[in-house]
């Protein structure tokens, strides 16, 4: 199903409960009664078009952003992606870490320490990846947009900022992979190779969280690939054709 501005906000969550975290990231709280997406967005001061693009891209793997609808800015995308990064690093990952610690308290044995160390390594990798995007990729994307705008407004050739000269979105996209490998490994280690833990509910909870983090991360990178990357690539092309 493709969501439109007239879809009831509540129906988004019924269609895909993982959208709850997306809605939260826009600062929208529950309790919206029968209001439509447009009504809720207007009340909360959220750009409806942009919200719908994110919700649709997140929900439907095959959703392709419509060019004519791309009225939002790179800044908006970057803000959203940064909020998401913050959610992973400061909420979701610590939550899983806490659960693993809880499991270790309940069950002695060095094998669980290995699991914790392994997840710790994953956290470091994820943090480094996020830092790379926050400190290099996003500033680059914003700079491209700013330069593109100046170019269009003035219509004359300007000095190209060095960061725009030095990088390209394509270069970044190549580095943008394999971050989920450790997460994938961890699931199999817990499912197949860790000695049985007595507290099923706790292990299940950890596994559910790992699966949903993995899914969320995949949906997140799809938003980067489908919404941010093409937009910046398009601007890079326009810039290259002028300078």
């Amino acid at each position: 199903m493709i969501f439109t501005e007239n879809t009831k906000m509540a129906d988004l969550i019924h269609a895909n409960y993982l959208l709850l975290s997306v809605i939260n990231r826009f600062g929208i709280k529950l309790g919206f009664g029968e209001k439509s997406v447009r009504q809720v967005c207007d009340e909360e001061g959220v750009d409806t078009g942009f919200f719908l693009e994110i919700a649709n891209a997140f929900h439907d793997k095959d959703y392709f952003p419509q060019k004519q609808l791309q009225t939002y800015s790179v800044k908006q995308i970057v803000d959203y992606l940064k909020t998401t990064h913050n959610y992973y690093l400061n909420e979701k990952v610590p939550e899983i870490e806490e659960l693993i610690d809880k499991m270790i308290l309940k069950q002695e044995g060095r094998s669980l320490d290995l699991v914790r160390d392994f997840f710790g390594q994953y956290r470091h990798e994820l943090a480094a990846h996020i830092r790379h995007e926050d400190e290099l990729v996003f500033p680059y994307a914003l700079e491209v947009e700013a330069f593109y705008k100046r170019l269009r407004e003035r219509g004359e050739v300007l000095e190209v900022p060095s960061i725009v000269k030095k990088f390209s979105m394509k270069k970044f996209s190549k580095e943008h992979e394999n971050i989920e490998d450790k997460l994938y490994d961890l699931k199999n280690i817990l499912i197949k190779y860790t000695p049985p833990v007595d507290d099923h509910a706790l292990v299940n909870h950890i596994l559910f969280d790992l699966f949903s983090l993995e899914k969320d991360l995949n949906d997140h990178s799809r938003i980067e690939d489908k919404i941010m990357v093409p937009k910046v690539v398009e601007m890079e092309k326009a810039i290259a054709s002028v300078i």
Partner: protein
Amino acid sequence: MSGISFLICENSYIIRKGLLRVLEELGENVEIKEVDGIEGFRRHLDYFEPDFLIVNPQVFGTENFFYTDIPARLRKCAIGLYSCPDLPENPVFPEFIALNDTKSNILEKIKSLITRCKGENYSNTGSSPEITGREKLIVKYVALGLTNKEIADKLFISSHTVVTHRRNITRKLGIKTVSGLTVYAILNNIVNIEEINR
């Protein structure tokens, strides 16, 4: 080590989805992206580098699209998607799928192309049996921090063979990273922690 990736270029939604369903049979390590026209096709090739293409020639609408639109690197790994069972007069694609092919038929063709391009046998990925003694030994060396080259020298085999072994290990265990394999090796007493810290 990563799996294999496909880019499907086909304008019919139903056909794309059907194909996707079939490709899923290849296993977990398959990444598939799909586009519905030339514009999306070009845009994707700007930042996604698929190992294989499955394209409907009609989408391109020109005679020599194979040479103008498909990057040279991918021409050996491209599959033509035809709506009629008759192949074109001058087949440019190394492999073809027709709409009325059966599921097993399509999978066979794709696997045989993968085998030809990647030099690996993809026909027996269905079951994933236990790892062999040889593979266990390789897991041990990986856990101890040896490079593929060092493992090759130790076992008197080529680096290429080590890579193949490692790919098989990953497929069987569902573990991709070196540190994941290290945890596996310790948990299964293939190595002990003291050896690793040494």
